[in-house]
């Protein structure tokens, strides 16, 4: 997505901040109000974690995992799934929909401009991804006795980089695909699908 060459620089900084703050709050409200989105972004990884956490087979230490249980290996996979779900399954259709419905064009006629709604969207996505990852770790630790990562900083960095990469892909799709529905299909195809969640993702084109 290309943004107009900094048209808003003449705006007082306070107005600019307030516009971004309002947009971010609005995007968060819309995210929560559209129930399929929080369910897909937070609910699905969480449900998978709880379901597989209850399966005894997943809780036995495996020699070929260096003594770790299958569940302990599965938690990072779920983190990737959660990040991918939001970045690839939810973000592109929302942005493509904004373009299709003329939301971005309307914003272009205001001092706020369309770049700011993209920024707001990314802030909300990053925040939801962070919350999801923390929730997954907390539930895994507290309810399912999975040990916490030994290198929290490393995990944070890896998750952040994964989120960046996947959001970038999602934005590319949103920028190239002309229609909401196609954005949805396109992403449902390339979204990460760990074996156990394949059936979920096929049926879950949320957003």
């Amino acid at each position, binding site marked *: 997505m290309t943004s107009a060459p900094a048209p808003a620089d003449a705006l007082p900084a306070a107005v600019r901040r307030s516009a971004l703050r309002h*947009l971010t709050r609005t995007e968060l409200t819309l995210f929560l109000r559209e129930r399929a989105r929080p369910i897909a972004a937070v609910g699905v990884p969480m449900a998978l974690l709880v379901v597989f956490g209850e399966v005894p087979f997943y809780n036995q230490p495996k020699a070929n995992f260096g003594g770790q249980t299958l569940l302990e290996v599965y938690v990072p996979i779920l983190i990737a799934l959660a990040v991918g779900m939001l970045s690839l399954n939810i973000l592109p259709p929302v942005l493509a929909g904004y373009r299709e419905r003329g939301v971005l064009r309307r914003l272009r006629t*205001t001092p706020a401009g369309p770049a700011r709604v993209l920024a707001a969207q990314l802030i909300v996505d990053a925040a939801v991804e962070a919350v999801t990852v923390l929730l997954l770790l907390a539930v895994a630790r507290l309810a399912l006795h999975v040990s916490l990562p030994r290198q929290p900083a490393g995990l944070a960095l890896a998750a952040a980089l994964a989120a960046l990469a996947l959001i970038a892909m999602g934005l590319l799709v949103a920028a190239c695909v002309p229609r909401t529905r196609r954005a949805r299909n396109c992403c449902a195809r390339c979204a990460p699908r760990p074996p156990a969640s394949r059936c979920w993702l096929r049926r879950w084109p949320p957003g």
Partner: protein
Amino acid sequence: MPAVIDVQRLHKRYGRTVAVDEVSFTVHEGEIFGILGPNGAGKTTTVECVEGLRAADRGRISVLGLDPRRDRAELTERLGVQLQDGQLPAQLRVEEALELYSSFYRAPADWRALLETLGIAGQARTRFDRLSGGQKQRLSIALALVGGPQVAVLDELTTGLDPQARRDTWELIEQVRSRGVTIVLVTHFMEEAERLCDRIALIDSGRVVAIGTPAALTERVPSAQRIQFRPSVPFDDRLLADLPEVTAVTRKGELVVVTGTGNALNAVVSVLARNHVIAEHLRLEQASLEDAFVALTGNRSRDAAATARPGSAPGPDLRPEPNQE
């Protein structure tokens, strides 16, 4: 009156198609200026250049003394835009949308008062996708006005509205104008232009065909008047046919039908009065803006009209030289 919008020799092409060709017009402060033309005439492209959403290939545009492309930040503060088919996120509530959009501007209007004025205060908590067509249109106008603009561009405002909603919207536009906002109204509805606009630019195939008040445009169509009456006593047709304003006198049974230009009605009535003939059941049909539109927008519409009424004689060619105005 100072010019609020000044467009000179605007030219825009998409590939090999010329969408806008040498369009020039000026909008004065406080007026409702109509841009009228058939679908695909280049109306929307013209106003998109004015709004700064499109770059013109050639020509000069000044809006409130600003360049729409270079001075975007300042322009968006002072120019309110209602886009054709501009929607909002489906789940966004009316009040949220207005609060959000008012946060974009330096000196926003009071959006609550705007809701009242536009008659959608009752829908403040309704989600966008639950609004009726008329309510969406009102919200769209509200969003165009929430920044407290000096100029508002409204594109195809009443398309898809039912007649009542359309009339309500017209009243609204007049209210907005009375608050000192200059309005550019893009439309293909004759009735809308005739009713609302102080001046109209008639655009066809990317060119300005005529500019003027609705009345002035209508007057440009000769044979504009058709007077029909039943004379109280017989009289000689030549009494009327000899008048310079009268072009034809025909009889349909008891009825006399006089066609004429300009002040034909005055002339006819005074001649009849002098000869002690009373015109009963007097009816006057004047050329409407629609007639002017058909006459001025050239071949396509005229051919269509001629095919529709094969019996009627082809009208005079009224198309002026394109650069006449």
